[in-house]
């Protein structure tokens, strides 16, 4: 029984990471109806930046916040430079640009920081076992950080004027522009925020999976599965979906398929959701009028 409880708690901890990346995906999806294939690579790059800062002797939390800031700027710049010119192009062009980004960022990360696996520090250490040894300090800390991030984002979108502007720009760009919202600026901000959230997820997961340039590939897929499960147009649903996928993945890995088929679990979740309930658990069914 202890084994099961441990698997579930570990699942919640990784689920928190999926939930963050899922949230980043949903944020970009809502604003632009794009799915950013390079999200994982961007997060890996951010994590490497944090690793570099830490190894250069910067205190962990300072490096943590500096990385979030740098990632925000990188995300916003990518939107400005690469996505803005093809705003009205067909989806194929966007997918092409994302694939190009994936290649560039993934390869540049390996080129700058090397392909060897690195150990990433965790700020959460504890001398004594927590909750009767069921949970590690890092798992607990990760979950806490994720929840704080999610809460901050919720408050930002729900209660600030900027958040309201971003939601308006995503919901109806034309009307938003008419009431004086700078829609282009909102899109760049959205990309920046998504990159920052991705960076946090990367820094939280790196101590567990170790840091190398392909670290986030699987995580992106789980996050996408979580986002679909919860409903890709519903941030709250995506977060819940992310947690659910984390637990499911851990349980399936421990009791059903073994670790070597874990990625396939993501594929199965994605396909089952699409076949059974394409809108996700909490998503809106979109009707289009013709």
């Amino acid at each position, binding site marked *: 029984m202890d084994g099961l409880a441990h698997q579930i708690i570990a699942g919640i901890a990784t689920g928190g990471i999926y939930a963050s990346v899922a949230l980043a995906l949903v944020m970009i999806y809502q604003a632009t109806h*794009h*799915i950013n294939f390079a999200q994982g690579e961007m997060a890996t790059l951010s994590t490497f930046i944090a690793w570099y800062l830490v190894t250069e002797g910067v205190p962990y939390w300072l490096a943590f916040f500096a990385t979030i800031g740098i990632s925000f700027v990188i995300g916003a710049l990518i939107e400005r430079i690469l996505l803005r010119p093809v705003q009205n192009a067909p*989806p194929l062009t966007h*997918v092409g640009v994302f694939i*190009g980004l994936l290649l560039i960022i993934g*390869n540049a990360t390996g080129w700058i920081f090397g392909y060897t696996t690195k150990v990433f520090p965790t700020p959460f250490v504890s001398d004594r076992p927590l909750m009767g040894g069921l949970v590690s300090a890092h798992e607990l800390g990760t979950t806490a950080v994720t929840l704080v991030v999610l809460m901050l984002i919720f408050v930002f979108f729900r209660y600030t004027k900027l958040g309201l502007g971003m939601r308006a720009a995503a919901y109806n760009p034309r009307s938003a522009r008419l009431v004086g919202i700078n829609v282009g600026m909102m899109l760049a901000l959205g990309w920046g925020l998504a990159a920052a959230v991705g960076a946090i997820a990367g820094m939280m997961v790196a101590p567990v999976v170790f840091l190398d340039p392909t670290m986030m590939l699987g995580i992106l897929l789980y996050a996408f599965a979580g986002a679909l499960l919860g409903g890709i147009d519903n941030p709250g649903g995506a977060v819940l979906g992310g947690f659910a996928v984390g637990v499911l993945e851990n349980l399936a890995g421990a009791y059903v398929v073994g670790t070597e088929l874990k990625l396939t679990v993501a594929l199965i979740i994605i*396909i089952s959701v*699409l076949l059974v309930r394409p809108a996700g658990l909490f998503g809106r069914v979109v009707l289009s009028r013709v």
Partner: protein
Amino acid sequence: MSSATGLPEGVAAAPVPVAEAGTPAWQRLLLVAGGVILALAPLWLLESFHLFQLTMAVIMALAVLGLNIVTGYNGQISLGHGAFFAVGAYCTAILMSHFDWSFWWTLPVSAAVCATVGFGIGFPALRLAGHYLALTTFALAVAVPQLLKHKAVEDWTGGVQGLFLVKPDPPAFLPVTPDQWIYLVVVSIAAVLFFLTWNLIRGRIGRALMATRDHPTAAEAMGMDIASLKTKAFAVSALVTGIAGSLSAVAIEFVAPDSFTIFVSITLFVGMVAGGVASILGSLFGGLFVLFVPNIAESISKAAPGVIYGIILIGLLFVMPDGFAGLLRRLTARLRRGGTS
């Protein structure tokens, strides 16, 4: 009116494209003869390694052609065609190494298996459009190496070690080396499939595919069965890419899970975009592009060829969205205008 293009069923197969209407028969014959000579010349001109590279380029062109059917002509973005490529390669490899089949007999089996798998993937794909489909097929391609390595199928696929096979020997009456023979085989099969695809695309089905891509609602109102068209497009596309996989297995004489990572799918996608989306000729350019441009990228920067490659891809999307085929089309159009005026 039996079909949406306004042509009765029987006539629909007749060649109607506007571009060729004015080309006289002798010019077409000349084009075909030129193509044959161009395809055979490397046999004598290139030595073994470069001939192998060219063989691989033709194989990639065929795989890109498969992707073009479903993504270019039918508008369903697939980032997972590497999966079909892998299925084709493993069909041939398993039949040849476990059952001692001759290479030729594995082709129809591989075609049938790939078409079935494609049909199976095409079905959930009906629920998806654009980016969703791209990411789902992406997930499929990521899962492939893991599935191939899994214990349940290890006896068949050879697990991480993969499978070795042997090139078919050239027939005794032809004075060619095995390398030259495989080049001939690949080029002939590719030529047949390119011709068949060209025929498919310019006929009624091709127009229906493009109509579904450009305006699904209007296409449906004209009486097209969109669901059936889309799943069949996936099946045909998987078949073509799968055959390319089969050919690659014998050309390389080796298959292993780690040669079928997500990057095969990405490569095919890049080839399609670079060559020209929804263009038969573009697929050929795409095959050459994905085989030779990475070498160029590597010669520019040894440390980070992927960066150069990615920059080339994004650059092409920005300045040449219709690929090399589009560039060629514009150039010939300009030449023709210049010639007649």
